[in-house]
């Protein structure tokens, strides 16, 4: 090195060090600030163990804490559990809890609190939507102040998935506050009644107005959360949501309408649009059986007058629907045409698209075989609810595709509650278009598609489906499990018990100054590491 080049090199080194350190500084999370979040739907109520809807779940995940969480790549990380151990026979799971975890009322998160919460979820009187997922749980034992053991009736391969991310996952409740306040007070979000152990404590919920959460200073992860406050507002209209976003009135849209993504990015080029693997199925369900005695939910079943015939189900659902065309029109190509029961982002999903190629000639032949044709044209009803405009678009495309087969599909547009009434209460319907819950595993779909669940709307009564689900859930060898998963998904297509159209894309949108958020679809929406860079 020459005498002249040495100072130049020193300056360059200093400059690069400064650049590196300023870049590092820029990425150092800043504390404070209010995150302003927009939800597209109203929160139903605030009893986390019983309320329906994603909007409630995304509050529960921040006010509450659980035993474990799951990362986007499927790894389990401890939440209030410091470590856990499964027995060799997979019949017990022992969790060691963090010693410093507190509920927002100051009481300790201990083994007794874990037992209290799981017992509450399993109690039929609680009427929790999570209860069916706890079916494999035998009992919960307190082994020590910070050691709790869950005993299972049989091995359950997805026990940790269930604790982490089936619906809300396990949300621990403070036994003291839960016993002190009534269910009604918790539902209303009365201050002091909704007590979790998460990074934020609930300050206020005004239905139709806002929900406010503030940092819980004694959160068990030191230094977290970064934010002082999270304010959630409901903005139902996507145009208003876009305007509020562009004007900088909101920092984060927790679920954004896929139809408007292009418009939003054109208006706000700096917006951070987050999406990922498709985990929610979009289906055109067909009813398989109806009550023989005319009484809804009767165990005595008869085939549905139209779709009770497998040939008609296959003609219409398998060969008669052009999934690629639906995706192109309804989702502007932003989804995956998918015949299999579980969308491409679900664990152990199988591509069975080849089983149902679009083949109108074959569809017509099968319909003719079933006795339908020009002399006896097939007419059925497609029900679409008004919750998302895409349902109606899909129903319209199906109507058009059916017309190509000489089949008349009449669209019945209903509101969400009417749809729920018809489907849950075994009402009269032929086909409906809907996206159901986001599926993290194939196992989580049992609840929607086995032969016994109320939420299995087609009401097929094929016990083989239940048997395959049971085998799948109990099999601890991942390779063998994959084989069962394939068998199950192929069986569902062969019998058209689940007529899938595609995945349903999910979008979140953040302002460029919102940092630290980890996208994990609908399953995990956590604000504890979020910070505002402005």
């Amino acid at each position: 090195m020459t005498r002249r080049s040495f100072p130049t090199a020193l300056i360059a080194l200093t400059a690069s060090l400064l650049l590196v350190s300023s870049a590092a500084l820029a990425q150092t999370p800043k504390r404070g600030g209010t995150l302003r979040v927009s939800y597209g739907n109203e929160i139903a109520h605030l009893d986390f163990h019983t309320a329906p809807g994603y909007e409630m779940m995304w509050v529960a995940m921040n006010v509450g804490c659980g035993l474990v969480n799951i990362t986007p790549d499927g790894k389990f990380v401890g939440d209030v559990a410091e470590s856990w151990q499964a027995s060799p026979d997979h019949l017990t799971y022992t969790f060691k809890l963090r010693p410093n975890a507190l509920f927002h009322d100051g009481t300790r998160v201990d083994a007794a609190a874990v037992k209290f919460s799981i017992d509450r979820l399993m109690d039929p009187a609680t009427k929790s939507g999570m209860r069916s997922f706890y079916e494999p749980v035998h009992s919960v034992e307190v082994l020590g102040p910070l050691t709790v053991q869950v005993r299972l009736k049989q091995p359950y391969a997805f026990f940790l998935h269930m604790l982490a991310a089936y619906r809300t996952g396990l949300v621990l409740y403070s036994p003291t506050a839960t016993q002190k306040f009534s269910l009604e007070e918790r539902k209303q979000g009365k201050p002091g009644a909704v007590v979790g152990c998460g990074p934020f404590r609930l300050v206020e919920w005004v239905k139709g107005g806002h929900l406010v959460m503030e940092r819980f200073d004694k959160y068990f992860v030191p230094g977290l959360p970064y934010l002082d406050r999270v304010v959630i507002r409901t903005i139902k209209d996507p145009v208003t949501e876009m305007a509020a976003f562009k004007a900088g009135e909101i920092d984060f849209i927790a679920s954004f309408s896929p139809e408007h993504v292009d418009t939003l990015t054109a208006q706000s080029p700096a917006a951070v649009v987050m999406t990922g693997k498709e985990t929610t199925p979009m289906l055109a369900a067909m009813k398989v059986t109806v009550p023989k005695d005319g009484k809804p939910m009767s165990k005595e079943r008869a085939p549905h007058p139209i779709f009770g015939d497998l040939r008609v189900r296959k003609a219409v659902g398998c060969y008669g629907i052009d999934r690629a065309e639906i995706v192109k029109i309804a989702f502007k190509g932003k989804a995956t045409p998918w015949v299999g029961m579980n969308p491409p982002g679900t664990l152990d999903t199988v591509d069975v698209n080849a089983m149902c190629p679009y083949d109108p000639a074959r569809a017509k032949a099968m319909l003719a075989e079933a006795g339908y044709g020009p002399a006896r044209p097939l007419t059925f009803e497609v029900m679409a609810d008004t919750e998302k405009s895409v349902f109606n678009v899909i129903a319209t495309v199906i109507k058009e595709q059916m017309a190509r087969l000489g089949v008349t599909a009449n669209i019945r547009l209903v509101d969400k509650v009417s749809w729920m009434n018809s489907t849950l209460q075994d009402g009269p319907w032929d086909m409906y278009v809907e996206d159901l819950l986001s599926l993290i595993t194939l196992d989580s779909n049992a609840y929607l598609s086995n032969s016994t669940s109320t939420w299995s709307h087609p009401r097929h009564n094929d016990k083989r489906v239940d048997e395959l689900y049971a085998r799948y859930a109990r099999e601890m060898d991942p390779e063998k499990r994959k084989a069962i998963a394939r068998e199950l998904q192929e069986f569902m297509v062969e019998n058209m018990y689940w007529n899938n159209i595609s995945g349903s894309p999910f979008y979140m949108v953040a302002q460029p100054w919102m940092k630290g958020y980890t996208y994990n679809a609908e399953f995990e929406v956590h604000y504890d590491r979020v910070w505002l860079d402005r």
Partner: protein
Amino acid sequence: MRLYVLRRLIQIVPTVLMVTFVVFLMMQSIPGDPVVALLGDAYTEEDAERMREAYGLDRPAVVQYLIWLGKLVRGDWGASILTGRPVLQDVLVRLPVTLELIVLSMAVALLIAVPAGIIGALRRNTWADYAATSAAMVGVSIPEFFVGVLLLLAFSIGLQGLLPSSGWIYLPGTCPNMVCGVSFWGNLQHVLMPAIALGIGRAAILTRLLRASMLEVIRTEYVTTARAKGLGERSIVLKHAFKNALIPTVTVMGLQVGFLIGGAIVVETLFAMPGLGTFGIDAIIARDYQQVQGFALVTALAFVVINLLVDLTYTLLDPRIRYA
């Protein structure tokens, strides 16, 4: 006069009862069941039946209505089936937002309609008249949500967020919650676009009506007499003609309150305002019968009370009108 007011007040009772009864029967007859929304993912037929029994939803509609009425007489408006919150509490939190919206949208309507109606009548068949009547035609034809979206595009997106797109800031001293944005200027910014969106349609109707009334009045003999007496045009128009032309306009204003409440549902949803409109529509969608009844009750009460006030206004506008 006092007797008249008393009689009208008594008449409010059967009117409101009729409205709430019809609404109750309509809610019962449309498909849907609040228990489905209440149980959500935990729905089972057995639990649903137990819930219906617990909430009295398995009883005949008339019995359910009478139970609701019985509670109402004791000052109990019932509680939301879904959240358990007292309905009256929710209504009282949301009513001021909607009242402010309605009052301001009517003010917007009058600010446009009064000058446009008068100018249209006085400058009949001129460009000013054509402009006013054409604008009125356009105003009547465009629905509130469309005006709202245009305003959003213009003032929230187009003009660098000059006006906030959504939400609500309370007037000082009116915050009903623990956490509120409170500021006079902020409140005005938040209510301006919704009030314009809601007011424009009313302005159009009132402009057409006022123009027609003014045309009729300025042709009457007493106006000719006033002119013959040498009174100034301003005095003739404002003091004599306008005051008399106002009577049908005020009547329609009263009737328009019902439409404003209906329009508030759309406008409040679009601008994400925490008012009675969004409360009502959410309640209907969730089939929350108790909340729907509360919404119907307060809407019916507002409508009949405002129309009573309108009737009483006639005596101020035309001293010849007397109520016995």
